[in-house]
């Protein structure tokens, strides 16, 4: 998105494709990450549409059940590791050095590697679609023994996950080093924008849990090919052990996917309310306590594996506790809006949409925490509805809000406002049409990950499928809008938004190739 940046500068860097391959510039790498996420978003979306087509009506119409399972598995892996995580890393690359008044990321060479690993990892993952035995179909959670039944794709799956993990660990190390060492003089930790704060905490989570996932999948690999029995009862292992390891990674991972969006929303709401963020320090503490709690709640994903009573009760209580800091955040956002002077440009719309729909996802999350009720919800469409509410109108909406918010800064051009608003309203309508009915079919007894269902679930599945197609097509507007804005449009001012505060708005739009060669003065 920065392709128009910098014709006036006398920076030396290769042009054409080599510029992008060899770049160590934080903005270039940020742009690469964001485009990568965009491409993966459409690939993962296409997989979702295969799923929704098959589920449009009862009966098997389009795909084989095995391929259906591959689609659910790959859709999840692509959306989590290929869309949300790279998009946030892209935003981090673009914005963190600017927000803290630094010249670039701390470790530019590593920054380049951490991006370029990703296309390799995903080529490897996607190539499994054409392999003998099909793509991985055991769910993105990779539970053994089922995941060990994967065909030729298995080692490719594991190594792809290793590479994705490596990429995000390197990205996280870079973020931490940047935030700790590259701040402009006077930029104390408690003066940092919340986006920087949430990313700092996210980066620590990544560094702590991605290696655990790597360890878990390595054990799967040795179980399959080298005769170990970590998870095999016949050899003295325990299949449930994998679930413990996986969710020890997996639950912090859930917060990795959502914390940066808290940062984005905390930047947008005050801007358009023209009023400072309410409760800055409690926001920081709330984020930190969510991150801490995320390490002691993992087994709420496994209430039905048959844990002893004491275990179930402990994980229920710990999980319910998370509602407290999360609630604090929502209350703070609403209070920030209270008595402001709001306008509703597209970024604000997406941010408000985020708060409402993320909270709905939070409510269903609270319901899922109640162990006896979870026995009914577990592995049904109720869960699917829950995590899609926190991930699609949650994380994805926050990413879109961020794109609209900073696009004028990145490109120097204003995006077409009406089109942005159309994109928002279509997305919001269709996202609810897709995921709200899933609560009902889940409660009525439809398990997740099934290619065909009994007749009582038919109507709501049809509605969900229509919603999914609508949502998918609405995203083409987003793509068109971004390309159009990069190519030209009304020139953006440096300030861009009336109420905008922060170092990024002191730079020109688009900003110079190197952000702050001389550190800015901090108020």
């Amino acid at each position, binding site marked *: 998105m920065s392709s128009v940046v910098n014709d006036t500068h006398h920076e030396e860097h290769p042009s054409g494709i080599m510029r992008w391959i060899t770049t160590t510039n934080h903005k270039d790498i940020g742009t690469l990450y964001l485009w990568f996420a965009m491409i993966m978003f459409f690939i993962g979306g296409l997989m979702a549409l295969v799923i929704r087509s098959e589920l449009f009506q009862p009966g098997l119409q389009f795909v084989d059940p095995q391929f259906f399972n591959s689609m659910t598995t790959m859709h999840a892996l692509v959306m989590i590791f290929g869309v949300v995580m790279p998009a946030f890393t892209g935003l981090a690359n673009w914005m963190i050095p600017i927000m803290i008044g630094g010249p670039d990321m701390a470790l530019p060479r590593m920054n380049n590697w951490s991006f370029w690993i990703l296309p390799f990892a995903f080529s490897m993952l996607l190539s499994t679609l054409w392999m003998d035995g099909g793509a991985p179909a055991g769910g993105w959670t990779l539970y053994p023994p089922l995941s060990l039944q994967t065909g030729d794709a298995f080692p490719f799956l594991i190594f792809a996950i290793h590479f994705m993990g490596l990429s995000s660990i390197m990205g996280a190390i*870079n973020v931490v080093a940047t935030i700790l060492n590259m701040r402009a003089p006077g930029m104390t930790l408690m003066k940092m924008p919340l986006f920087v704060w949430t990313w700092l905490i996210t980066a620590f989570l990544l560094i702590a849990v991605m290696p655990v996932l790597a360890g878990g999948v390595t054990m799967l690999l040795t179980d399959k090919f080298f005769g170990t029995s970590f998870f095999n009862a016949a050899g003295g292992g325990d299949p449930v052990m994998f679930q413990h390891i996986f969710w020890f990674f997996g639950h912090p991972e859930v917060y990795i996917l959502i914390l940066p969006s808290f940062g984005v929303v905390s930047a947008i709401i005050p801007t358009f309310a023209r009023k400072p963020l309410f409760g800055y320090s409690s926001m920081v503490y709330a984020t930190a306590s969510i991150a801490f709690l995320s390490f002691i709640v993992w087994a709420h994903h496994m209430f039905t594996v048959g844990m002893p009573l004491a275990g179930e009760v402990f994980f229920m209580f710990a999980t319910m506790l998370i509602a407290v800091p999360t609630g604090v955040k929502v209350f703070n956002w609403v209070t920030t809006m209270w008595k402001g002077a709001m306008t509703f440009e597209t970024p604000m719309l997406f941010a408000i949409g985020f708060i409402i729909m993320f909270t709905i996802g939070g409510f269903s999350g609270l319901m899922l925490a109640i162990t006896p009720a979870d026995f009914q919800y577990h592995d049904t469409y109720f869960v699917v509805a829950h995590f899609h509410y926190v991930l699609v109108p949650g994380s994805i909406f926050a990413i879109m809000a961020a794109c609209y918010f900073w696009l004028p800064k990145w490109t120097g051009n204003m995006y077409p406002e009406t089109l942005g608003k159309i994109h928002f309203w279509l997305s919001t309508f269709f996202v609810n049409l897709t995921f709200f009915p899933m609560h009902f079919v889940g409660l009525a007894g439809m398990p997740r990950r099934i290619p065909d269902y009994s007749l009582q679930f038919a109507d709501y599945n049809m509605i969900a499928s229509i919603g999914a197609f609508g949502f998918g097509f609405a995203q083409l507007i987003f793509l068109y809008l971004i390309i159009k804005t990069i190519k030209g449009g009304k020139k953006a001012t440096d300030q861009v938004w009336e109420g905008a505060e922060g170092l990024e708005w002191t730079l020109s739009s688009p900003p110079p190739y190197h952000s702050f060669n001389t550190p800015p003065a901090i108020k």
Partner: protein
Amino acid sequence: MIEKKVNIKTAKKLIFICFSMFLFSFALIPLYNVICDVTGLNGNTSNLKEKSDINLNVSNINFEKLNVQFISHEVNKQNLEFKPSEFQIEVVPGKIYSTYYVATNKSKSIITGQAVPSVSPNEASKYLKKIECFCFEEQQFKPGEVVKLPIYFAVDEKLPNRIKTLTLSYSFFESAKVSKKD
């Protein structure tokens, strides 16, 4: 360039955390077993696979009686029939009891393998003490052979009161399926 050094130092620290967490993921397995031993979480069966030397004091016979049930899971029913001789026995905690399973090799070849135990409710597994069990070592059955496989066991007196029924289950896995090394 002082800045660069600082960055590399930070990166080194973070990489160290990464490696420790990678090792920690493997350490989770023994750690988990330790936690399970202490809490009886998730039916940790390590104690079921080895001989316990317990000091049984039968001093207090006023314990409520409880039921111990025996079931089996035949992984490959066509080749090996593997069944408990009795479904349920009434026991008093602290006393030693014995029962046996019967294995019948219905195939035309030698079957080698091992029985893997599991107890429900799983928090009870650490209170079921085995003095002798066929599951401690690998078994071999000649074609057509019918073998009685004995167990000697006792239920620990510390078993929580609310547990009134224990079920001991064995799944017999053939060696081809049992990994050679773990």
